[in-house]
């Protein structure tokens, strides 16, 4: 097993491993000093290859990044020595999500100027994002997609609901605050309508403050309408409950 693992140092250093082998090798280097040292050296070598591709960065980028930094909270130092055994990324700690909101600020500034209304929306999103445990990378990818669109959805609840999506990625991000927390035997279910037919997109629950965030994978491109209903635990194949949120996307 060790001989097998050693050979992965090369592909690992150039990010050429599929996720499963990457995870396997990361567990290995956590306990194998020889491989740990070799990986550090090969990453440094790869970095030199990377630096050789230097070219002038786009002129507007510096201002955007510096402005974003100004409103972006930094992470605290890693807790304790155990950074080798990183916690599962899927459930990101809340502090990671603070960065997501900042990237959204950046994405919106990239797309158009910052207006007061937009600032308001960003603030709402920041609040909604602040404590949500979600996959940072997938969320970031939507928020920073070149074609990302933000659609406010209508609701009779005293809630703020947004659907951010990228047609190119075929992925969406549903963000809401002010929803009513449901009983344990119920869920919210998001539907995306294609040609007038609702397709189940995702089910979600809120936190105790009524905030929710959910990633939708696939069947986002081409959807014309979004709706949220309350469904029994586990969700339904077709909407059965009351529509609480709706709007064109």
């Amino acid at each position, binding site marked *: 097993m060790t001989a097998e693992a*050693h*050979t*992965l*140092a*090369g*592909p690992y*250093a*150039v*990010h*050429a491993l599929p996720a499963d082998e990457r995870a396997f090798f990361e567990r290995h280097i956590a306990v194998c000093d020889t491989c740990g*040292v*070799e990986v*550090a*050296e*090969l*990453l*440094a*070598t*790869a*970095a*030199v*290859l*990377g*630096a*050789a*591709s*230097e*070219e002038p*960065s*786009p002129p507007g*980028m*510096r201002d*955007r*990044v*510096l402005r*974003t*930094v*100004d409103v972006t*909270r*930094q*992470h*605290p*130092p*890693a*807790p*304790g*020595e155990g*950074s080798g055994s990183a916690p599962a990324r899927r459930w990101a700690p809340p502090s990671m999500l603070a*960065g997501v909101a*900042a*990237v959204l600020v*950046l*994405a919106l500034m*990239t797309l158009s100027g910052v207006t007061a209304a937009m600032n308001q929306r960003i603030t709402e999103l920041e609040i909604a994002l602040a404590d949500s445990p979600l996959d940072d990378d997938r969320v*970031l*990818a939507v928020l*920073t997609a*070149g074609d990302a669109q933000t659609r406010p959805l209508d609701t009779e609840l005293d809630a703020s609901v947004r659907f951010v999506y990228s047609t*190119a*990625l075929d992925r969406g991000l549903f963000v809401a605050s002010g929803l009513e927390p449901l009983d344990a035997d119920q869920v919210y279910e998001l539907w995306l309508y294609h040609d007038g037919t609702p397709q189940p997109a995702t089910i979600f629950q809120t936190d105790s403050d009524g905030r929710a965030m959910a990633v939708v994978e696939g069947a986002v491109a081409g959807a014309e309408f979004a709706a949220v209903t309350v469904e029994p635990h586990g969700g339904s194949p077709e909407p059965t409950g009351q529509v609480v949120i709706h709007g064109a996307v």
Partner: protein
Amino acid sequence: MTPPDHGPALRAVPTGADPATMSEGIGAVALETLLARVAQGDQKAYATLYDRVAGQVYGLVRRVLRDPAQSEEVAQEVLLEVWRLAARFDAARGSANTWIMTMAHRRAIDRVRSEQAHRDRDTRVTVRNDERAFDSVAEEVETRLEHAHVRRALDGLTDLQRQAVELAYYGGHTYREVAELLNTPLGTVKTRLRDGLIRLRDTMGVTA
């Protein structure tokens, strides 16, 4: 003065280097020192660091992704991540430049993979695409690689080592794809990637 032990990831500013007086002679300040100041929320230090690394970050991301608009997005993400995660930088694991460039490469590759997953979830690379992929990567490498010592080091590899390293690192291919592109067994590609990088490390005198 011995830096107090605040835990492994918080890198102390080197002894005698007073952050307040260090804005002069900025060119001489190590990236690690700048990063330590960035970790303390110093935006001026960040701007300096930005100017030092943004071209490298953007250049690498663009090398991998090609598309300028996408590259700009990803480069922005990376540079912002440097700000957010500065306190997590651990000098014991490598230099600041390696840390930043590793993130840049990882983010670029993530973008390649997520786009691939959408575009052709189940298609295999065809022979015609193979050739085009390799030719275009090779050409890019040829025309855009300015740093002569890197060029020379790459030239010092065997053909298979060089092709494997270029396709994986600059081309953003997994080693399985590289094996398919080069029509070479998987195990050979893994080994060539490793011994190719080791040779580059030795030729260029890289240390962690």
